[in-house]
């Protein structure tokens, strides 16, 4: 994003339409925090209405809330603002339940919101640190597909990691 976009007097508004028909009117500078939207806007003669058939309105709203915060604070970046952003990000992910977190992560990835994906993957990582294998399977709804005895062999190889 070029810094000149913040100095233009007329702010272009974009309409983003979620899979459930919910629409959001956002400033271009906000929406272009998302790589996928930015690419479309950079294309010549792009429309103001963008349909996002893979994102539900609830999660698109949350993604845009994050974009708005980070687009605003980007205009005058100094160390103080970095701190504010960090604090805000912490609050943003603090109380997300697992379900919301996953959908948000998929939405952010789909829209190429790299910084937001970073924030959310770090949050998931912090939730699964130091867990037992069984807890991980439970969290991610994964069934073991190892043959009998195979899993034991794998565990044996790094038995110290299970202590």
């Amino acid at each position: 994003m070029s810094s000149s976009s913040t100095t233009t007097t007329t702010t272009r508004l974009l309409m983003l339409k979620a899979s459930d028909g919910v629409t959001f009117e956002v400033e271009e500078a906000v929406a272009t925090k998302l790589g996928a939207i930015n690419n479309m806007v950079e294309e010549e003669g792009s429309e103001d209405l963008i349909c996002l058939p893979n994102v539900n309105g609830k999660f698109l709203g949350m993604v845009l809330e994050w974009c708005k915060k980070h687009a605003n604070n980007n205009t005058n970046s100094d160390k103080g603002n970095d701190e504010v952003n960090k604090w805000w990000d912490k609050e943003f992910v603090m109380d997300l339940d697992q379900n919301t977190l996953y959908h948000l992560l998929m939405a952010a990835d789909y829209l190429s919101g790299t910084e937001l994906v970073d924030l959310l993957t770090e949050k998931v990582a912090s939730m699964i640190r130091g867990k037992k294998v069984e807890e991980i399977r439970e969290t991610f709804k994964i069934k073991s597909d190892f043959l009998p005895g195979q899993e034991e062999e794998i565990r044996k190889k790094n038995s110290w990691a299970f202590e």
Partner: protein
Amino acid sequence: MVLAPDMQPPQRKRKRRITAAVAVASLPLQMMKEILCRLSAKDVLRYRSVCKDWRSLIDGPDFIATHLNRSKLGVLINGDDSLQLLRIDLEEEEVLSSSPPERFTHPFDQDTGRTIAVLGCCNGLLLVGFSTDTEEQGMAIWNPSTRKCTTLSYNTDSIYKSQVIGFGYDPVNDDYKLLTSTIISLARGGGGEYILELRSCCYEYQLYSLKAKTWKTLDKGFHDNYGYQYGHALVSNALHWIVIPKLEQLGRDSSPPLSTFIFAFDLVTETGRRLSMPNLVIEGEKPCTYHRLVELGGSLCVVSGYRGIPPDCHFDIWIMKGDNTTMPWVKLFSLVPSNVGTHYLSSLLPLTYNTTGDQVLLAINFRTLIVYDLRTRTAKDVRISGVGECFNACMCVSSLVNWN
């Protein structure tokens, strides 16, 4: 990032509505990679047994590389009988309240009584030398985070001592290489007698490839000087060490004394070249009695010490800013013992600094770790526990890097 197959790129005009049917708690493997690469090596090795997909993901070279890139540098502290990786974040206001250190178990049974010395460190792999009272000395390549360890022996027929110069990575051939030197003949004194004087002996240089598992002898005349007791620095895939010219060259009255220089051995091209040292001679002062070559924040760094009784004692820290300029060396800072809360400075090792460059982590006298503030010229102690009286420190990451 790769989109999951059930995802479509966003469309400018809505053509048809696809209701996203993402199952709760199921994330594509690509996304799992982004999450798992943020975890510790121990967690990741445990999660290999979650399912087949995770196992092959975690074992893949791509994952190992991503995990390595995400790893944050820590301070590896090798104490009398413990090895630990301490995370210190100089960017944080409260640097000293870091998370508990990661303690590593020695690769050898404790009861063998082997002590280890870290001779080189690269991408989470350590080259360690070990010795016992009864056993001959040896060395090993060891990843303390995965506990994989392979012992190596020097490759030489010489009856004299071999020594490790350094260990590093060749990214072009994806190989780890180890450079050693061995005395092959002693020097002759004036009366024709042989003298074991390290600075006058002839050396043979050998390079080990971890990938090929072979040694090769480097061309004779590669260079015949000695000086790597001042440490080595791994910068831009090249091993660097300080070279002191041979004694007989120094002694000749007619020729001007040869000055010390830095030798850089490129691990990719396997060729060497000379670099200049900073000007360490200060008019009217005692000569520099302490040299140390280290890597600091990706640059070559020389520490020169003028040891003595205060106020004569001071240390200068030089950094190389690009080696093509006519004045490549810049003095980063100088300090006297009182700056770092001690009466006597025998050794000083800079480890890392923060982004603004005003806080430097220093290991002092092999006994304390301090954060030194360049603006206020004051130091804060970093509390470390369970290392014993003396320790060595270097910067290191925790990684899953593997070898066959």
